[in-house]
């Protein structure tokens, strides 16, 4: 018989307001095996924990039930408390009487009754608990960063700075990400390239950082501290070790009509290309969709002109397997497609552009050499209308329900820079709200209005009508003056909502990392663990977790790095002892469990069993690798013979809880 102590927490008024905590403690004191029962205002406080420790010693408790908040919140706390008093931490059970009881009920009598039932179930479970000891596993002292934008770059630099090896996998031919496409950065108007390219070069030069550019993660196996990752290095048809980045091939290639994706298709490039001058690695890549040699074997100009002999038309995708202790996701964002917003005529007029396209049109390395010219006719625009919230805060199904966060500031930047460089251009910004909660952000926006004379209009554009004379008739509401405006504009710039990169969803599946309905990665705790995924060993950096500007991304990237460094600094990790175990006597080797295990933790072995009459039989039975098992319990449900059980959550324990609730 266990000697059980029950501890009922008030959680201030969080529990005590809807649950009669004293009555709960009293009722549970009569449960079988309960030798001590108490209630206290804050059980997680030092005094509360001391109460538990003292009771364990004074009453020789062999099991503890805490009636409090969710185990996600304080299970670890109370396990440590028990361990400090000499009790095996897995002899502690939590009855969640806050999230699952007091917070959702209004009626105190009903809340109290339910809290008693939940406590009774926990007591019934503790009776069947057994001490568990966690195993240990080694840590591979190398990190993987997926995505080489500013988030991935900063994370990699910080990890390397602490002395650990780190690999960056980037799907594009160069690292740098979206920031390479930006002209200036708010609110200080630094040139994006000037502050980013030194960091890109640092990555290339740091011997602890290895860049897999033009590569993708294809498979992830293992667990925290011990991941095995397969990386696909896509064929560039150029030998990276030989290419000097001289760029001669990119000038001589006869295929000139390839849309230049770095400039968002606003101009063209050749079939062999280096995305931009500061690319890292500065190596040419052949676009197989357009290369005549690769398509029909007729050309070979680049190979002829390459003095380094780097062109290799026969190159194929390579698969590399690497081991890592930690993985950082930094897959970033993209502007949404605007097919569902054709009232703004994006597909119907070249002079309606997205804000990212506008960046390219004002960038010295862009298609117009930095002079703002209308895409349709190359003329200088005299009236520009900016439309905010295109697809953001949209619950109609066409866009995204969230605020994209960065648009208010970059639009203010675009408007201000336009007025600064072209004072003869009238600039209108249509907004629903101007959201500028950042250091020096609101001041920046006000400067656009007060110093640069940008016309901010509270209202929304309803329709953009391209006219026969090449202008754009913008029909919009002005809610302050309560009138409908008709502005004849030369250009319209749409602040398109941003969304997670499309590669994030399949990656999340590979990593068993959770995502929200918008495909942003979910953090382990929205306030207290913002850079960790709930899956151990997976960390989050930048816009893959939610919309972010550059300062925020860099801060989060550093935070993710520090978490990785903390993990890699350990020599051994303590595992989770609540893992599956197979009862070999019951197992019939059917493979059902192996098929459902998402972690590949189950294998089979042929084992000798002594049978009646001194015979020996060889039977195939399941074996769980406790270091890989995450304790999800899928196998215990799949097993037809009931051989699989989860330590700490055995079928008997769960049935005992159900019985206690139904009593």
């Amino acid at each position, binding site marked *: 018989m266990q000697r059980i102590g029950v501890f009922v927490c008030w959680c201030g008024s969080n529990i005590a307001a809807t649950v009669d905590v004293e009555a709960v403690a009293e009722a549970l004191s009569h449960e079988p095996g309960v030798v001590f029962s108490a209630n206290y205002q804050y059980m997680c406080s030092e005094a509360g924990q001391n109460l538990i420790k003292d009771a364990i010693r004074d009453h020789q408790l062999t099991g503890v039930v805490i009636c409090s908040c969710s185990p996600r919140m304080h299970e670890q706390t109370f396990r440590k408390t028990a361990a400090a008093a000499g009790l095996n931490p897995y002899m502690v059970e939590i009855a969640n009487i806050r999230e699952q009881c007091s917070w959702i009920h209004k009626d105190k009598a009903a809340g109290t009754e339910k809290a008693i039932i939940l406590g009774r179930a926990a007591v019934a479970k503790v009776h069947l608990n057994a001490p568990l000891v966690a195993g240990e596993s080694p840590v591979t002292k190398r990190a993987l960063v997926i995505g080489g934008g500013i988030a991935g770059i900063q994370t990699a630099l910080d990890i390397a700075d602490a002395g650990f090896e780190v690999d960056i996998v980037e799907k594009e031919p160069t690292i740098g990400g979206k920031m390479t496409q930006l002209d200036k950065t708010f609110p200080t108007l630094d040139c994006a390239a000037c502050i980013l390219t030194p960091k890109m070069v640092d990555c290339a030069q740091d011997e602890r950082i290895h860049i897999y550019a033009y590569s993708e993660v294809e498979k992830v196996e293992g667990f925290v501290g011990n991941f095995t990752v397969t990386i696909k290095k896509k064929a560039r048809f150029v030998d990276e070790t030989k290419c000097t980045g001289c760029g001669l091939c990119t000038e001589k290639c006869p295929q000139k009509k390839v849309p230049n994706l770095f400039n968002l298709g606003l101009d063209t490039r050749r079939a062999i290309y280096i995305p931009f001058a500061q690319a890292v690695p500065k190596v040419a890549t052949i676009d197989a969709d357009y290369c005549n040699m690769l398509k029909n074997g007729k050309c070979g100009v680049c190979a002829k002109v390459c003095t380094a002999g780097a062109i290799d038309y026969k190159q194929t995708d390579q698969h590399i397997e690497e081991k890592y202790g930690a993985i950082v996701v930094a897959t970033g964002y993209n502007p949404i497609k605007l097919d569902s917003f054709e*009232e703004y005529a994006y597909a119907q007029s070249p002079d309606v552009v997205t804000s990212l396209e506008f960046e390219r049109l004002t960038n010295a390395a862009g298609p117009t050499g930095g002079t703002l010219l209308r895409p349709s006719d190359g003329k200088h625009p005299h009236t520009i209308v900016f439309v905010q*919230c295109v697809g953001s*805060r*949209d*619950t*109609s*199904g*066409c*866009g995204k329900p969230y605020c994209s966060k960065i648009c208010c500031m970059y639009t203010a930047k675009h408007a201000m820079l336009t007025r600064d460089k072209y004072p003869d251009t009238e600039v209108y910004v249509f907004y*629903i709200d101007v959201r500028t909660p950042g250091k020096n952000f609101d001041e920046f926006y006000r400067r656009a209005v007060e110093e640069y004379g940008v016309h901010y209009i*509270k*209202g*929304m*554009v*309803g*329709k953009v009508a391209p006219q026969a004379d090449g202008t754009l008739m913008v*029909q*919009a*509401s*002005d*809610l302050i003056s*309560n009138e*409908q405006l008709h502005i004849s504009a030369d250009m319209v710039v749409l602040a398109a909502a941003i969304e997670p990169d499309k590669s994030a969803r399949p990656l999340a599946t590979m990593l068993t990392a959770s995502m929200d309905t918008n495909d942003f990665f979910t953090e382990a705790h929205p306030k207290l663990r913002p850079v960790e995924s709930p899956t151990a060993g997976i960390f989050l950096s930048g816009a893959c977790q939610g919309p972010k500007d550059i300062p925020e991304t860099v801060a989060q990237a550093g935070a993710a790095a520090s978490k990785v460094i903390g993990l890699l600094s350990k020599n051994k990790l303590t595992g989770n002892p609540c893992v599956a175990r197979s009862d070999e006597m019951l197992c019939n080797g059917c493979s059902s469990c192996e098929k459902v295990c998402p972690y590949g933790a189950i294998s089979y072995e042929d084992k000798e069993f002594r049978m009646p009459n001194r015979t020996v039989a060889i039977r195939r039975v399941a074996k769980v690798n406790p270091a890989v098992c995450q304790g999800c319990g899928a196998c215990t449900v799949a097993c037809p013979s009931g051989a699989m059980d989860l330590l700490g959550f055995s079928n008997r324990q769960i049935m005992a809880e159900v019985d206690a609730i139904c009593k």
Partner: protein
Amino acid sequence: MTNSQELKETLARISGVDVRKCMRCGKCSGTCPAYDEMEYHPHEFVYMVEKGEIEKLMASPSLYKCLSCFACVERCPRGVEPAKVVEAVRLLVIRQQGCNHMTPDQIPALLDEDLPQQAIVSAMRKYSK
């Protein structure tokens, strides 16, 4: 219960629109082809219903200026459907005894040789009960 509260509930029932979903962006009014003929504009219809000022709307000629073209419904980023609010307010008026906005005896004077039947049945549906 106040009359305005009652009207608000009736209106919500008829229109099926939850005016609280409006985030006051004004896109409906930016899009409306009849804007300039209206005393109260689409965004005001939604806002005034939320404030309970439905009687003002019921007295306004704006009710008969909506073209039911559904541009505001199509383009609203929050799925508010302002045109349905306008129609519901109009019904609050014309469902009252003797409040039809258009009666059959007016029609002959409005006819011309080419006018399609569709125009007459549509107008009668929209303007009378």
